[in-house]
């Protein structure tokens, strides 16, 4: 469900940008989705396709990529990927899971910036960690005519 609302925000943003640039037609919309958000890529692409209508957007080619998450510890310099993080996320209290009509989602699905609340260094346990990439949805390319 969150995929649909993000897709709507992306489309609104694309339309606003196209308008600012006096575009007649959007040709390409390229979006990257951060791995940490655990968005359903198929559902997101489907949502974008549903919302891609009208003379401005109807012919736009959609390209959606997953951006890998890369963590590192500021304290001991250990680096790790999403696989190790997923194990930690299984320990998130059930009472914090956000309810949707078809199940539940982790808080990071909505607010990935909160990762230090739930993720820690697998070696030293510090929460003072850095997430280099993979925490947001970004429009990386927009081609118009």
């Amino acid at each position: 469900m969150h995929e649909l609302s993000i897709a709507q925000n992306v489309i609104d943003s694309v339309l606003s940008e196209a308008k600012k640039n006096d575009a007649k037609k959007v040709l390409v919309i390229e979006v990257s989705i951060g791995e940490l958000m655990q968005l359903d890529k198929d559902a997101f692409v489907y949502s974008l396709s549903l919302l891609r209508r009208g003379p401005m957007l109807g012919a736009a080619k959609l390209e959606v990529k997953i951006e890998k998450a890369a963590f590192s510890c500021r304290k001991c310099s250990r680096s790790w990927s999403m696989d190790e993080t997923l194990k930690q996320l299984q320990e998130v209290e059930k009472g914090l899971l956000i309810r949707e009509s078809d199940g539940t989602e982790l808080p990071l699905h909505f607010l990935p910036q909160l990762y230090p609340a739930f993720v820690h260094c697998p070696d030293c346990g510090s929460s003072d960690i850095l997430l280099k990439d993979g925490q947001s949805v970004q429009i990386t390319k927009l081609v118009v005519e």
Partner: protein
Amino acid sequence: MIAVKDKASYVFEAVRKKLNHIGDVILVGSGKGGVGKSMIASAIAITLSKQGHRTGLLDIDVHGPSIPNYLGLSPPLRSTEKGLEPKRLGRLGTMSIAFFAGDNPVPIRGVEKGDLIAHLMALTNWGELDYLVVDLPPGMGDEVLCAFSLFSTRCRLLLVTTPSKHASSVVSLMCKLAGRERIPLAGVVLNMSYMQSGRRRIYPLGRADRVRLEKAVGAKIIAEIPLDPRISEGLFQVILKKNNEFARAIRDLTGKLAEV
């Protein structure tokens, strides 16, 4: 190719859309911790909603959110096709970082805080609001600057202080910052101003010299709120419902805010 957009512009666009459905944003801040910002923000929001105004309460204290405690609200949140549903208390809708993080500390740095607050605002289904009350954290860092930036088109800043000179000197800095950022002031609330004991007033934090304080802070005092020890005993909402000195002072303050 005409543009490469970044994540901030996508979120700010979403926040702009939300703000089109919000009449007035009241930022409740101080710069100083422990002066009762969250209590005042909660009391104003509850009172506005009880008076029939469609009201939202946004807690942007990332490191020490206390609004859920005042209002007795807790996770989990619910998400619908319209976004994240604020927690309801009667007609008041409340959103806080605490609903996501629970008892986990949130040790995030710098610009990520602003990004977090912008996303929280953008993802919440506020619907149509007459008022959005925003509880700012202590300090004048990322969260406060983010709020000034997000809400600059339609916000007022309500400053909260106590009779303490230490508090008012920090509040005066906040007042200066607001001026530089062109954030209009709604006025100053002198919190914990006195205690009512029968007909007698006691001044546990000292008697404030209003003229000196207004001069020091650089803004007008629009309300004096009494100290009621029962608030710290968790009776906040009960006290607010009854006809007592505290509830009357809050109603008077809310009336002044709604007059504008």
